[in-house]
């Protein structure tokens, strides 16, 4: 096994092409769980409907966690719901991804300071891969978030863990402050 491990981490031709095929298959059929919680769920429905049509990306909501590999937490997670979210997450098969959609599931959103019954961020109970901001996010933003998930899937591979993939992506990413600064200079 040690030999095999070494070979895999060396990323030879065989492994990388298998990786590519696998990742291609996985990222072009991301099945999210149709799991609407609040306002964002309506925008998620609008994204699934005719005008934005997520099926272009092979994304089609499934009703059962057993059949899905992506969980879109669309809306406010409350204390009463938190345990159910964990249960649903645990029922999903590996590899699974979580997209936190909207301010409420990112960090409690508008309900972060006095909302006694609101979970302040779904990342307190389950690991989140991509955070989509907005209250509620436009369908464009949700699609952008899903493309980010696809990017993450593309980075992963045999012997490359999620953390390493994220690290690689972080290296590639640009600081939003710089982008804003450039935009500011351009407008000035």
């Amino acid at each position, binding site marked *: 096994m040690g030999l095999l491990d070494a070979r895999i981490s060396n990323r030879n031709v065989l492994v990388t092409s298998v990786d590519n095929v696998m990742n291609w298959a996985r990222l072009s059929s991301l099945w999210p769980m149709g799991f609407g919680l609040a306002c964002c769920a309506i925008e998620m429905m609008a994204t699934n409907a005719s005008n934005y049509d997520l099926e272009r990306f092979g994304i089609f909501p499934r009703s059962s966690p057993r059949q899905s590999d992506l969980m879109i937490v669309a809306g406010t997670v409350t204390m009463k719901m938190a345990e159910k979210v964990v249960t649903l997450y645990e029922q999903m098969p590996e590899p699974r991804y979580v997209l936190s959609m909207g301010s409420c599931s990112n*960090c409690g959103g508008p309900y972060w300071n006095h909302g*006694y019954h609101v979970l302040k961020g779904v990342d307190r109970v389950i690991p989140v891969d991509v955070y989509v901001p907005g209250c509620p996010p436009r369908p464009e933003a949700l699609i952008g978030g899903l493309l980010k998930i696809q990017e993450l899937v593309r980075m992963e591979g045999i012997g490359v863990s999620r953390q390493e993939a994220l690290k690689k992506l972080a290296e590639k990413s640009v600081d939003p402050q710089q982008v804003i600064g450039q935009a500011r200079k351009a407008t000035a």
Partner: protein
Amino acid sequence: MPAAVQQSKAAYDIIRERFGEAVSECDANPTMPFFEVADTSKWADIALFMRDDSRLKFNYMACLSGVDYMEQGQLGIVCNLESIGGPTHKIAVKVKCARDGGSIPSVSCVWHTANWHEREAYDMYGMTFEGHPDHRRILCPEDWTGFPLRKDYQVQETYHGIKVPY
């Protein structure tokens, strides 16, 4: 005095005539005319009378809200009543009870609307409703501590191992 308030006053007079001192004076303000039930134990009778009397016919309960009167050391409910298909009057009724261990007679058998609203008032304020058929919390989980809408409510630190405050 606007016509709507006069109608409410007229409806109040009928109740006053029947129950006398059990109801307080009518507060005929233009935004929400109301009267208070002085004798809380009579509330269910008053409610039944208000619904069934042919001159009143308050068959529709629009709203029942719990209120915390912290200075007076009391909790209360405010019911907004009106009539659908009958006379066009509407009136609000206030019922109060003690802040600790107080109870109010339930009117969920008079208006079904009151059933869930009373459960909600109990959930948020902690007064009990005597004779309620299903006296449980409704919005918060069963094992939630405290009554969130009381003015002196302190949120609990953890719930089932999950941190509650930000």
